């Protein structure tokens, strides 16, 4: 090519490139600004408060800088440790049950029986509902004597329906919240597993069939490994969500009886908005932040892995 291109061409291109760039910033800036104002600024404030003994109900009191004292107290406090164990119990069981139910359902739906779309949509309904309202009406089902749940259990097991209260008993309350969460969120795991199952091309099974691999072997060597990245995604997301679980459980049990269902967020709410130990609870909030942030970065990595499929 010779140098005969008019000089205006690169200049025009540059103007256009420049305007693209300015449009890009113009479009992204409001979002970033909003997030900085409503998320990052408060976050930095929380970190600052976590080094003080500030109390939000007495804003005029002299605030003292206490250094890492709040962190030291939280991380050696057996009550907080207990809260984390309650959260762990909830987390482990809900994830185990939801994976089991969700995967089984997905596997069954993938048999492509007639009308599977309709039933899938019905199954999905609970997960879209307001957790607080759901928690509230499940307390109705859990009423001894009059509650639907107690009635159904007694109908099938013969136990007197007024002999047990799911949310009033120390041993049953942790299971009461697990049951409701599983009812609500198994469809979530199901949907993601279903996507995983549908992403497996038929020819892999056909090849295995030609190799005379048994159905059992096909399941463990093809189905499970291919669905695993999707399952990981579902588990991580449910893990993060249930780690910070608040609305559903607060309406169901309010953390009680005693502190048997007091999850991390419920404990935090009590410290921050009932006892008003703002500095102390800020430190606890930072600990939860960092944990969730760590899990979220693993989640995004898993997300990108699935995206490439």
């Amino acid at each position, binding site marked *: 090519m010779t140098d005969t291109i008019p000089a205006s061409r690169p200049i025009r291109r540059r103007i256009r490139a420049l305007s693209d760039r300015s449009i890009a910033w113009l479009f992204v800036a409001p979002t970033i600004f909003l997030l900085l104002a409503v998320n990052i600024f408060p976050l930095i404030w929380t970190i600052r408060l976590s080094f003080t003994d500030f109390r939000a109900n007495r804003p005029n009191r002299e605030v003292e800088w206490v250094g890492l004292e709040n962190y030291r107290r939280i991380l050696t406090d057996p009550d907080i440790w207990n809260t*984390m164990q309650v959260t762990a119990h909830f987390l482990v069981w809900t994830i185990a049950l939801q994976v089991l139910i969700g995967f089984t359902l997905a596997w069954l739906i993938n048999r492509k029986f007639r009308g599977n779309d309709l039933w899938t949509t019905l199954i999905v309904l609970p997960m879209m509902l307001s957790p607080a309202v759901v928690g509230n009406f499940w307390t109705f089902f859990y009423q001894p004597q009059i509650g639907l749940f107690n009635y159904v259990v007694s109908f099938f097991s013969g136990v007197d329906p007024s002999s047990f209260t799911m949310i009033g008993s120390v041993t049953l309350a942790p299971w009461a919240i697990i049951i409701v969460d599983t009812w609500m969120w198994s469809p979530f795991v199901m949907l993601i597993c279903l996507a995983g199952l549908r992403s497996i091309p038929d020819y892999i099974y056909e090849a295995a069939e030609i190799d005379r691999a048994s159905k059992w072997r096909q399941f463990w060597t093809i189905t499970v490994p291919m669905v695993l990245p999707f399952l990981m995604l579902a588990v991580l997301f449910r893990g993060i969500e249930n780690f910070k679980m608040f609305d559903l459980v607060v309406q169901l049990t309010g953390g009680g009886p005693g502190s048997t269902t007091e999850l991390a967020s419920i404990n935090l709410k009590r410290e921050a908005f009932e006892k008003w130990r703002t500095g102390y609870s800020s430190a606890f909030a930072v600990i939860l932040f960092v944990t969730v942030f*760590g*899990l979220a970065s693993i989640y995004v990595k898993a997300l990108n892995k699935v995206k490439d499929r």
Partner: protein
Amino acid sequence: MTAFFTGLIRLRRGPWEMLATLLIALGVIMLMQPFVLWAFTWSFVVTLVGTVMFIITSHFPE
């Protein structure tokens, strides 16, 4: 296994991210385990190190 260590030495993204992921997972387990209090106490430091490491190492070349 050797690939993992050479990756670490050459500051490659894969193995370092794996290491950070493991640290975060370890921190979360330490935070929620019911067995020893000292593990709970130090869990936050482990998670924090893992998270910061993840942010940094995700910018390493592939």
